[in-house]
């Protein structure tokens, strides 16, 4: 039987696509432009394009792989490993650190840049802080899921410092200057960039590094052949001076890079990929205390926020129903503004935006932001529930001599509570999950701790399942209790 023209056309297209796939003309690489210069940043002249030394390294690698062009894919920095493994791009570059864990789970290139983990402190502290040992009981900030964070966790046990994890590398320095943090431990490139942004004031970088690390490219485990090709290109770039030129262009070249290049070029290519590590029972057990601590933080943040939301929500609903004209307008504006803007934005405004006026501790800021946000939703639930109580009952109460306050307390409120119970339970479960957002202001709760765990073990399967189980264990009993109460009240 002869194929139809449409089938032949489809077959032809598929064959042509398959051929293209065998000889790719571009190298798709992933990085995080939010990390900014000098790694990867949006080009101010053309924000659709990126620039930075990692962009040039990627372009050099692409050229060396048979004249390919490099195509950038944006990915969150902490997700580079997972994304490269699932095939979103072939090569991850963006200040990716060389760690034993990464080497065991992925195909990792030779190191192409040496960085130093340096401490930044306020100028007033520079004379008495010389290293981590001098920071006992003090808050030291860094980026989560990094070598620096691991160093701080290790130091927590030995020196008693308090590690604080951030999702970005800008706010740790802002909080250091404002006094929320006592020190910041990060790569020297990041520290120097932060200092330049502040005009060289606000903090100082201690001269003695805490540790030394290397930036590498990361590929999927199965791509070890491509990794070997990338290594060859990187060696060539070290030999022909193109890598040095790139680093000099971005003002990150120093003598330690020359030493690194020399050492790398003398070493034989290893090409080995370690045995993939999965989250074994011992690793799960090791993380249980951290997850339990984070679950307690999630519960505390959620309960305290909900309590605040209920109190403020009741006041707002009462204001809308019983208040004078201006109070009704004021409460309506509050509710609409809060409901119409993202919770994440409110978190940033309360924690960072208000820092010039009042420097709230992160935990308090988290509760305030979540509580005040959910209060707007609670207010509308309570208003609806209060208005659902038949008006004739309120009139009957007036004829019996009850004051408005008594009517609210004894007649309207108790009935409204029954109407509000189901949506309130929904809101609490939603809040429990939204509490994960507070990690952006350094509160390490369940989801954040799980992300750290997942990064360390290189898989989301076990950490994800554990995290989901804990969330369910917290939310299901609540939903059950609410259903039981509803049933009891309905029966009554």
């Amino acid at each position, binding site marked *: 039987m002869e194929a139809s023209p449409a089938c032949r056309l489809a077959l032809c297209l598929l064959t042509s696509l398959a051929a293209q796939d065998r000889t790719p003309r571009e190298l798709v690489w992933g990085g995080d432009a939010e990390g900014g210069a000098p790694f990867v940043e949006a080009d101010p002249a053309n924000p659709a394009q990126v620039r930075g030394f990692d962009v040039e390294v990627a372009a050099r690698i692409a050229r060396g792989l048979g004249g390919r062009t490099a195509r950038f894919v944006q990915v969150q920095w902490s997700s580079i490993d997972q994304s490269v493994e699932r095939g979103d791009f072939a090569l991850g570059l963006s200040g990716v650190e060389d760690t034993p864990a990464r080497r065991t789970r992925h195909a990792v290139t030779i190191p192409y840049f040496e960085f130093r983990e340096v401490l930044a402190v306020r100028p007033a502290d520079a004379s008495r802080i010389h290293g981590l040992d001098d920071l006992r009981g003090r808050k030291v900030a860094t980026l989560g899921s990094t070598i620096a964070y691991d160093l701080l966790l290790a130091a927590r046990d030995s020196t008693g410092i308090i590690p604080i994890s951030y999702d970005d590398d800008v706010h740790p320095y802002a909080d250091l200057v404002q006094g929320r943090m006592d020190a910041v431990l990060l790569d020297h490139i990041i520290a120097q960039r932060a200092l330049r942004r502040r005009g060289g004031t606000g903090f100082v970088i201690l001269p003695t590094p805490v540790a030394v690390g290397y930036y590498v490219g990361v590929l999927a485990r199965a791509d070890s052949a491509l990794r070997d090709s990338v290594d060859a290109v990187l060696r060539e770039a070290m030999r022909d001076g193109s890598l040095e030129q790139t680093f000099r262009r971005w003002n990150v070249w120093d003598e330690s890079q020359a030493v690194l290049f020399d050492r790398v070029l003398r070493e034989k290519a290893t090409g080995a990929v370690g045995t993939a590590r999965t989250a074994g029972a011992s690793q799960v057990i090791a993380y249980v205390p951290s997850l339990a601590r984070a679950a307690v933080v999630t519960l505390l943040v959620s309960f305290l926020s909900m309590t605040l939301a209920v109190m403020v929500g009741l006041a707002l609903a009462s204001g809308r129903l019983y208040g004078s004209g201006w109070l009704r307008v004021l409460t309506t504006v509050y509710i609409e503004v809060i409901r119409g803007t993202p919770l994440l934005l409110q978190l940033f405004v309360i924690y960072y935006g208000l820092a010039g006026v009042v420097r709230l501790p992160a935990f308090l800021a988290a509760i305030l932001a979540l509580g005040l946000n959910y209060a707007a939703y609670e207010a509308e639930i309570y208003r609806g529930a209060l208005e659902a109580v038949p008006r004739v009952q309120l009139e*009957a109460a007036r004829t*019996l001599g*009850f004051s408005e306050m008594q009517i609210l307390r*004894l007649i309207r409120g108790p*009935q409204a509570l029954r109407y509000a119970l189901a949506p309130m339970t929904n809101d609490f479960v939603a809040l429990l999950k939204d509490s994960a957002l507070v990690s952006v202001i350094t509160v390490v709760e369940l989801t954040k701790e799980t992300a750290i765990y997942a990064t360390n073990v290189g898989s989301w399967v076990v950490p994800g399942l554990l995290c989901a189980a804990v969330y369910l264990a917290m939310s299901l009993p609540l939903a059950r209790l609410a259903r039981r109460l509803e049933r009891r009240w309905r029966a009554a």
Partner: protein
Amino acid sequence: MARRVTALLAIDRLCVRYDSRDVLRSLSLDVARGEIVALMGPSGVGKTTALRAVAALQPFDEGRIVVDGFDLKPGPVPPESQLEPLRRRVGFVFQSHALFEHLTARDNVTLALRHVWGKTRAESDTIATTLLDALEVGERAGARPNQLSGGEAQRVAIARALAPDPALLLMDEPTAALDPARRAALATSLRRLCDQGRSLLVATHDADFASQADRVLTLG
């Protein structure tokens, strides 16, 4: 010249308008102590509106209402804080009963006694038991409104309105949910209440029930 007001309830040329439409035009009536007065007339003639104006549940535009010396004037309804003397004197039984859904029949009766009129729980319970028994719903004291029949809910609503011992009871269509036997029983109960000196102003469509009243006033 305005009429002299001497009865327990005196309504003098009462006018109520909604959107410049006359709902009630120049209603005048007196109710003496111990008297039952029935207000009759077709739907929309203003029977319920008149009762609501007397109970200060809605404003009126012209005229005057005096309840046992307490004077209501045209204009907005006064705040509850100024209506305490009226609330002591007037009870209201709504057509839909308007029982508090979250409370038992007994608690519906005792709630105002305890929280408004300062009675103890024991005193309130005694009053509630007496009234509910008198209205033949004593056995249903522990039931909630959604567990009561229309007739039972009606009698609980009457007991609740009577609990503070008002001098005047306003009733809106009290027989709407009752079968003929219950209507007759209700008429007997109400007559007994009035024999104790209480006055009743009843809005009704029920001619048989109205015939039990001392006086019938037909509106419209």
